[in-house]
């Protein structure tokens, strides 16, 4: 049972101060020129207003674009390894959208699947989510096609829905109870607040069940994948703005004396992504790489990890230099028959 409360929008300032006093670091959407990213904020006035969606996802709070896993050096008694110091602080991600909050389940599934990824979990366990429901959407949004919605509570600790000059506050998790408790006097009873009337309308773009039925049978339909991917340039923009893409590359940055092992984001769209040392590349053409991207998110992840690898935030399609519109392509696949 999700408890509901109300809070005046003017109380945000006090809420932020309360969280900061309690030792939380607050990340929220911030404008950087024409783009928006999640960055540290001091007060609600720093938060970018009127956004449908940020340019970059909040993923980097738990999976930075690059990180040192450990350092190594030549010591007197051989190679010495120094683990990276764990430096994350308790962080509230504020003002993320319900689709983004949902995305962390996909990241968790990957990083806890066969082993517990310590650097990831160290950050992940210190993150809380205070999301804001969507009262507007654009042509790229398709959360309702991937099991979410503009007022979806899954993944959020607190979900705020703007209702006039107030927020309807939904306390979703135990951590949400804690976050509400820190500022209990800012909240009142939520009677008479109509959430549904204040949510964006996001049309369903494809039938997810149908897609999941059809997709595994399309592997050998070369023409379908070529047709969809001919204009794809093979860059990594879609993967790097995606809140659920987790693929990474391991690099050693070293001199002969020592160095660091580094984890960096990677993308299945790159031609080198699966290139073997032998020279063989199992995904030699862009159509196979595009197929992998779609299959990974909509076939392999649900099959193996019981979670969809997409939350319908639409960032990939907004960022694509050549307008590879994912929802449109998925609709074509779903309707293409078996």
């Amino acid at each position: 049972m999700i408890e509901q409360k109300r809070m005046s929008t003017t109380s945000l300032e006090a809420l932020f101060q309360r969280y900061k006093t309690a030792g939380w670091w607050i990340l929220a959407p911030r404008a950087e020129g024409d783009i928006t990213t999640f960055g540290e904020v001091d007060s609600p006035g720093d938060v970018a207003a009127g956004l449908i969606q940020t340019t970059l996802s909040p993923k980097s709070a738990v999976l930075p674009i690059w990180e040192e896993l450990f350092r190594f050096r030549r010591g007197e008694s051989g190679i010495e390894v120094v683990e990276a110091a764990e430096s994350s602080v308790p962080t509230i991600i504020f003002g993320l959208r319900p689709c983004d909050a949902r995305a962390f389940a996909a990241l968790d599934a990957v990083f806890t699947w066969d082993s517990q990824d310590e650097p990831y979990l160290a950050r992940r366990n210190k993150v809380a989510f205070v999301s804001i429901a969507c009262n507007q959407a654009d042509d790229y949004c398709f959360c309702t096609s991937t099991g979410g919605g503009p007022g979806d509570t899954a993944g959020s600790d607190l979900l705020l829905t703007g209702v006039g000059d107030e927020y309807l506050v939904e306390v979703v998790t135990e951590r949400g109870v804690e976050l509400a408790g820190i500022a209990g006097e800012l909240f009142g009873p939520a009677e008479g607040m109509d959430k549904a009337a204040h949510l964006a309308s996001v049309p369903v773009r494809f039938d997810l069940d149908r897609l999941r039925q059809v997709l595994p049978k399309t592997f050998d339909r070369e023409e379908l994948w070529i047709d969809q991917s001919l204009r794809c340039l093979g860059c990594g923009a879609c993967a790097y703005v995606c809140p659920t893409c987790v693929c990474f590359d391991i690099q050693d940055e070293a001199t002969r004396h020592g160095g660091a092992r580094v984890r960096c984001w990677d993308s299945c769209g790159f031609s080198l992504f699966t290139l073997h040392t032998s020279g063989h590349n199992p995904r030699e053409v862009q159509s196979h790489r595009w197929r992998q991207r779609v299959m990974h998110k909509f076939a392999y992840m649900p099959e193996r990890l019981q979670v969809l690898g997409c939350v319908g935030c639409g960032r990939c399609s907004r960022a694509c230099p050549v307008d590879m519109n994912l929802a449109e392509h998925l609709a074509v696949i779903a309707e293409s028959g078996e």
Partner: protein
Amino acid sequence: MTGLQDAARDLLQSGEAAVVIGFGGGSAGGARPLMVRDPTSVGDLIFDDRCVHNLAVYLLKPEVKSLGKPAIVGTQAVLRSILQLASEQQVKDRDVIALIPEADGGVRRLETLGEIEGAVSKPDAVLSPEEQNCLDEIASLSREERWRFWQEEFSRCLKCYACRAACPMCYCSQCIVEVNQPQWIPVPAHPLGNMGWHLVRAMHLAGRCVNCGECARACPVDIPLNLLNQVIEKEVAEQFGGKAGLSATASYALSTFTTDDKDTFIR
């Protein structure tokens, strides 16, 4: 429009072209690159103000090359790119047919590099007033301030390489960022890795950039890469003359040495 569609149909039906690289309608009322291989699909081709991509990038993509001879809807940026690619021996005479939509709805068909040379015009105002202001502002900064400006801009870089992928002149089959023995450019998107990549990208395009602006348009985090190229092109033109993309036979600054080259740029 119908002129373009008719020309595309004729080319595909006669087998003179295996694919027409053009524009189709895209998301949110925009346009997108479109490859038409089937003559019955030429109705999807459009051409208007929304059609901004430099389609020449597709001419060297192996997936597109493997289809057979292309025809391409030729904006000025596309024509300049073809000529520059030709001068770098990447496109040969009669490798590609350019279709130039005319104001009256008709289409001019260019079969040879010579015809393309005749149709290309020197780019003048390639920057928007906003971009020009930004460039003027950068130019007024001190050397240290300029360095900080670009450090700041590059700090947003994700290393997604959309700038590289969208650039017709970035066709190296093995880009230097992918050479790892030795590792010239650090892979991570940290300050050194980003600065390394962007310096190499800008310098490798010196004298070759046709100033289509595609790198900046493709960038998901709005780094104004075209401004950097614009300045370099101006510098190269002043030092060595010439302008990329106006001739199919000209050699470009980075590949040429003459004894009367100026060396005033060495400071």
